[in-house]
């Protein structure tokens, strides 16, 4: 810890001061230091998307960003997105459509879906498939996830 660096991050609206090793990835900082275990580490090399979170409003892979790089940033994880109700329509649609099985990809998948719907409030199935194509799901085969995102988009458009 001789090279530990002080950082200040806003996580799910809470101001967090911490001293971290420079090598600590943001996903490990969130999970291990802050006990925000909702985001998952699936591959730790940026392919699977399980660790997708929001940093300053943009989707980021938590395993490809260091905690020190988040100094001064605002981070949203599945815990914060759930409590704020920001992705409630997506979460309800995922449950109704059984768009999750083991649930390990789901927090990251929801972040990807939320970002997709921000850019395309009325997406086609192809656009949904493209929008979540960076998030690996071994269980569902994706069909139900596409259904759920389309349903959630309709709900959200109705307001």
């Amino acid at each position, binding site marked *: 810890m001789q090279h530990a660096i002080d950082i200040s991050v806003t996580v799910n609206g809470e101001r967090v001061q911490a001293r971290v*090793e420079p090598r600590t990835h943001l996903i490990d900082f969130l999970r291990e230091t802050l006990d925000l275990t909702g985001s998952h580490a699936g*591959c730790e090399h940026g392919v699977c998307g399980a660790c997708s979170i929001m940093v300053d409003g943009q989707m980021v892979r938590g395993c490809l960003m260091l905690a020190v790089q988040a100094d001064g940033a605002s981070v949203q994880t599945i815990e914060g997105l759930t409590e704020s109700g920001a992705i409630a329509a997506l*979460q309800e649609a*995922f449950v109704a459509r*059984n768009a999750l099985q083991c*649930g390990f990809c789901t927090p990251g998948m929801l972040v990807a879906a939320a970002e997709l719907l921000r850019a395309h409030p009325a997406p086609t199935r192809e656009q949904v498939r493209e929008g979540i194509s960076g998030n690996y799901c071994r269980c569902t*085969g994706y069909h139900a996830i596409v259904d759920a995102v389309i349903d959630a988009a309709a709900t959200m458009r109705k307001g």
Partner: protein
Amino acid sequence: MDDAPLSAVDRPNSYIGRSVPRPNAKRLVAGRGSYVDDLRLPRMAHVAFLRSPHAHARIVAIDSAAAKQSPGVIRVVDGREMAAVCTPWVGVLHHLKGLKSAPQHALAVDRACWQGEPVVAIVARTRAEAEDAIALIEVTWEELPAAVEMETALDPATAVIHPELGDNLAFRRDHVGGDPDACFADPDAVVVQATFHTGRHTGVCLEGRAILADWNPAEGRMVVYHSNQAPHMMQTVFAKHLGLREGEVRVICKDVGGSFGIKVHVYPDEVATVALSKMLGRPVKFIADRIEGMVSDIHARDHRIHAKAAVAKDGTLLAIEIDDLTGIGPYSVYPRTSAVEGNQVVNLTGGPYVLKGYRARTSVVFQNKTPTCQYRAVGHPIATAVTEGLVDLCAEAIGMDPAEIRRRNLIADDAYPCKNLANLAFEGLSHQRSFSRLLELMEYDKLRAEQAEARQRGVHRGIGLACFIELTNPSPFMYGIGGARISAMDGATVRLDPDGSVQISSGVTEQGQGTEAMLAQITASAVGVDVSRVRVTTGDTETTPYGGGTWASRGAGIGGEAALQAGTALREQILVIAGAMLQAPPEALDVRAGVVVDRATGAARLPLEELGRIVYFRGDTLPKDLPRELVATRHWTPKDYPFCFTNGAQASYLEVDPDTGFVTLLGHWCVEDCGTVINPMLVDEQIRGGVVQGLGGALYEHCVYSPEGQLLTGSLADYLLPMSGEMPDITVAHVSTPTRESALGAKGAGEAGTAGAPAAVQNALNDALRPLGAKVFAQPFTPARILGALGRF
């Protein structure tokens, strides 16, 4: 109104057949899951493993002096030290005659036999510190000749991996049914042949393997939190190899991030983690990272099959002959063994069809690669690709439509019960109805017209059909008779609490397929309460009845039947008590929506919470001799048939670009028959997920090795997985032939999708390539292989 008593599944307000959302899904979408890596215990340490960088090498010396001084390091343990506390195991089953393997240790002793085998364990305060210390360990290796290719594993020039076994042949089975020689010699028969390959691939559960072991020496208790499908099996394994009693070991499986058969085997690094906890007297956690998972999770489906078939000119299939070869790595995996997949290829090939002759051989060989074992749909996608590839070759050879040749040869729906030439007993299948339904669903004739029109435009599209059988609900004939302590029976305990809520605990387990939803629906229906009043407990050897867990599509068929019987028994017990309270014969009452009612009129008589209040708090008001048990336990195991077979049919529609070899999947259909469907939405999602897992193996996934035995596709940047952009929508439909072995009538559905998808894609590809004179039979069907078949690469 019909006075006939309602059947066990056809009760008023039944949830059987209803698409109820899963009770655990809300928690998971909120990020409130509880996977092993989410758990923290006081004094918990982390283990990382130094793994063999060589396919085969002698461990000359291990210098861990510097590692022991590294910050945070608690303990460094090598194979010899580990062997003093943990006994080795041998993965054989007696009923697989001749199967042999060598003792396997939790950490390699003297010699490593595959790249990725764990060699040294480092326990530290954090995983990062443990990994830092790995880099400081000096191992002196002496590389040994490696047996890498399965094709040459039995050559005299190839090194024998375990000299004490004599050779590299782990298992061989020859089977002959009917008279294949006469069929192939028939002068009127047309004989077709091909060599099929299925690519070695692996499960890639998004949550890697994970275990947290907590030995409390003061209590003499080992509690293991495990990402696993079979907690009772693991309890036995940990107890046996660490010298404990089974009762001293508790295995808890909370949320499991995907399993697919990957998490039902004994892994040396996991056993080592439990042993380390025992050595240290504190909790030790091991989380396999993706890179080490790719070389240490079991692989599967590394097969080469020479195959031929004989067909009469009128389209009658006559005989099939296969010679299967599979490489399983250096050890048969404990305790289910690595001979089962090859054995299944022999059992399942030709399964949907009436044949006059069948000859099959499987040769299972050792090699210095990652061990292989059972992975979702064990052997099925291999057998189905071979069978359905041969059927299409037969159709082509005699100029018959692929749909027509199947119609003519599928076992008739009125032929059951029957046995086939592989000696499989079928209780009742629906090949003909399922196949007709498939053709209807996909609009076969219309699709053929569309395909022909596309060809006019120079667009190469293909339609592929595949019929299959699926083995589900295995009896003790799967593992128990071979000597493995793997339960084929499962229990359910159902309890009514004073407030009218119902608790069920079951021996089958949840990994996302919806086991807990299925159990809640059955229990709610059987007892007669709203499904929201049912709480489900699974995955804990201490609090659930003994059972096998969830694998081989047994959760609904076996665990569900136990739940139905336990729930029914509890209802009967409730009615005896209610009868005494209401001065009515129990048979005149029923429980519906949480209320004791008049059976005939449905009139409400007594809410369950009132019954509960009286029984638990005012038992003094009840007759002295009244039985007042509000808990019922029932167990169930299949007894009539060794396995409960299901059937189905799939179709793929795709487009090939002959210039690039790229394949675009345009559509996929599956019709399957799993008997009674408990939750149609969950079953459809099992099918869809399974189909995509099959498509992955057919098109993308491949564990590619160098000639030296180094895995070249060991990261997700190199190992391609099916992602949403390339996957098609999948249409699913059902035919229902309930099994009469159980009151529930449910067969398994977890592997049907994976069983048939690769064959459908293979046949669609060859249908698309036919005008170009090319054929492909080696999975995965990569652009390079397609271009190779076209002579363009």
